[in-house]
């Protein structure tokens, strides 16, 4: 299966292990990720904070490149990994699909590229896995992570807001898609009431105290549910949770890893986890034999 892939900035800079583990897992699953040529910044916060179409142009330029590449390889599916990129791209694409006048404005403005015909489908990698089917995924697992208790953390951008309708990848108040992934790779999801609580987001820049207050609660809840790791889909949440861990005693910390790293590990391909972390997990599942 060929799909277009939009990486976004964090995966190329702060968290290459998120991207690399995804590539490894996809290769094993027969998914060919084709990176969109000359992709732009998705637009991030400025584009979330306003309705002004101009703020969305970065995303649209990427769509046009994706559309042209898609014609070559015969797909209209764009997959993202970063939660924020997902939210922005999904929203912009829905707006262009639903509002013909906005689409016309944007196409008139971008006169150095072909027109965008809003036929792309933006999906998050979790939804791609869901569409593949967690049952089918289960059959491909070579190292079932039995005995590993995993706290599923969702953050906000995958689930909120539901405007325009269709942005959330799951029920915003009680999502379960990461739990289903955890079960399919043989691990046990922790009942984790803080799974959709805010991590503090960009307050990390000027008010890190807010982030520390939030993440301590999230990590503390995962600890009291005896979770071995927190599974995150979001680069910013991961950054903040890791920052939270640094303010805690080692005994109170819960490691935070990307869901694709655990997926890659269970598929028997390179997880891009630190050696220490990978050994810790393998030890926990009684899988020293795999080391």
């Amino acid at each position: 299966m060929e799909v277009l892939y939009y990486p976004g900035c964090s995966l190329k800079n702060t968290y290459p292990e998120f991207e690399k583990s995804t590539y490894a897992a996809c290769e094993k699953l027969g998914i060919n990720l084709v990176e969109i040529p000359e992709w732009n910044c998705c637009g991030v916060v400025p584009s979330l904070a306003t309705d002004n179409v101009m703020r969305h142009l970065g995303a649209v330029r990427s769509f046009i490149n994706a559309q042209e590449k898609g014609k070559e390889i015969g797909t209209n599916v764009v997959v993202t990994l970063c939660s924020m990129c997902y939210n922005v791209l999904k929203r912009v694409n829905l707006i262009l699909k639903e509002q013909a006048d906005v689409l016309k404005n944007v196409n008139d403005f971008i006169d150095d590229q072909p027109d965008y015909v809003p036929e792309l489908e933006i999906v998050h990698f979790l939804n791609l896995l869901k569409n593949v089917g967690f049952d089918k995924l289960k059959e491909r697992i070579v190292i079932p992570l039995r005995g590993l208790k995993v706290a599923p953390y969702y953050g906000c951008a995958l689930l909120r807001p539901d405007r325009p309708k269709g942005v959330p990848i799951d029920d915003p108040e009680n999502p379960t898609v990461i739990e289903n992934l955890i079960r399919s790779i043989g691990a046990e999801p922790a009942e984790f009431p803080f799974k959709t609580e805010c991590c503090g987001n960009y307050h990390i820049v000027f008010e890190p105290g807010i982030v520390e207050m939030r993440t301590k609660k999230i990590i503390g809840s995962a600890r009291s549910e005896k979770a071995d790791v927190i599974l995150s889909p979001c680069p910013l949440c991961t950054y903040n949770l890791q920052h939270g861990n640094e303010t805690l005693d080692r005994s109170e910390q819960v490691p935070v890893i990307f869901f694709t790293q655990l997926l890659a590990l269970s598929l028997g391909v390179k997880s891009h986890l630190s050696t220490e972390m990978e050994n810790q997990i393998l030890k926990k599942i009684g899988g020293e034999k795999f080391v």
Partner: protein
Amino acid sequence: MSALTAHRERPTKEKIGVFVCHCGRNIATTVDTKRVVEEILKHPAVVHAEDYDYVCSSPGQELIEKAIKEKRLTGFIVAACSPSLHETTFREVAERTGLNPYKCEIANIREQDSWVHEDKEKATEKAIKLTKSAVEKVIRNEELEPIKVGLYKKALVIGGGIAGIRAALDIADAGFPVVLVEKGSTIGGHMAKLAETFPTLDCASCILTPLMSAVAHHSNIRLLTLSEIMDVEGYLGNFHVRIKKNPRYVDPEKCNLCNDCVDICPVTVSSEFDEGLSLRKAIYIPFPQAVPSSYLIDLDACLGMNPITCGKCAEPDICGPEAVNFDDQTEIIEEDIGVIVVATGYELYNPENIGEYGADKYLDVITSLQFERLLSPSGPAVGIPKRPSDEKIPKRIAFIHCVGSRDERHQPYCSHICCTYSAKHALLFKELVPDADIYSFYIDIRAVGKNYEDFIRRVQEEAGVHYIRGKVSRIYEQDGKVKIFGVDTLLNKRIEIEVDMAVLALSMVPAHGIEDLASKMRIQIDGSGFLQELHPKLHPVESATSGIFLAGAAQSPKDIQDTVAQASAAASKALGILTQEKISHIPTVATVDTDLCSGCRLCISVCPYGAIKLIDEKAEVKEVLCEGCGACVSTCPSDAISLRNHTDEQVSSMLKALVGEI
């Protein structure tokens, strides 16, 4: 007030009066009523015109009567609100003054003019045209008499909660037979589950069970439990209803309530009556005071339909009177009915739809009805609520208001009763556990019944319940405690508290299956899914279908007091029909010119009332079924059908008036 009279030559014998209503400011602000009077007087048939503040009032009606007598009017127009409001009122004025009621027509210059326009000049022009068009119609109206038909003097009440019980008893006490149909195995509805009722704290059972018993023993009431409406045909006074009565597998006539069958039954399932907080057997009685007073077998749970598997309860040494009968069959019962009261009640919104409160995951997050069962002296906790997880008496409880109500993601409406019953819950619990800490999260306190505000104040001040204004964002359980995130919007502070148990005041939603029933009876559903009354003030208990009345929470969320009042109102409306010897039907119905009819049957397919049949290859209108909608008239390719007082000639002259040709 200004009264003007025209003195001109008139080509028609008709002498029409026109009465233009100000409707207070409703019409007069946007329509120059004086000008309407002046202009309409130029119409050759109009001999009298005047305007007045409220034509529907008593002095307004006297103006009409006076003009009819003095000017010898042959017909009149009231230019006012929609005919659905006061057409009947003004036609009664015509009748008592000696005019045929069908020589009165309404020109709607409110809903169709003043309310929807701002430009006074243009709105006035429109009012003149609408009034003129009504004059054109009325001068061509025939004098008609209502169609009279006989009726079955028997009522059907659907739903055996407090609304249905009250309505059935009122009608039966007046001497008319009633068929009371209840879907469940007992009557009593939600009220039977309640501990005490606000604001007087009367015990619910003490009020309800005597009424249930009265139903059981009333010689005029035929009670059908485990029964559902299959279909309803016919019309006001002449409904034909088929009812499906599901088997009970225990003969209530023989059963002596010895309980031996329950003792021997090996199957336990969760009790619906106790809202899942206790267990019952497969053969059971929902609660001891149930009516009919008999056990029944839950076929889904029972092992014994194959006697080899079980069948213990049917053995003669267990059931002495041989009341258990595995061969009991579904029965189809047919009844001829004059009037119907629909009182199908409500259910609680499914808490699983509100993921952030986790009622489906956490044992100690319960619904308000579950708490009601825990408070009930005959409930699963025998009077002192214990939390479901460990059966300990909770010391800290949070009550959450508006769960699913006043929330655009769930129900936009207010459920009306939750503020007061949550206060009642807090008070009753505080009396049982005086050292308890109680929190009540609310958006606004809406305690709008008689004495309710005093009741809330008493709970806040005397019982010391902590009222916190703000929504709860999340409820979860951790380390054996229920944790609540919320906000206090008065202190502008985030709140995180730990309690032993949380009680959700879930919104009231219409009972499951109401849409299906409504479509069988051709009654309307409102935007929230409740049954739609004909008019909120003029016809609050009538449905849009004549002869079908509404009562209780099926029409809108309401408390017991309002439910009982509405049930009695519906019963008195029903009695108003049952006490008549004949009933009237509008005479403005479709008529067929059989010489022109080709028997193509197109009219039959478009008639929403099933009023047309083909007799001898010609369409024939059953007049009493026809509501005069005109669908057949516009469909007929041979122009063979016309509507009385709405003929092509009338429509064409009305159109001419509207486009300014007259």
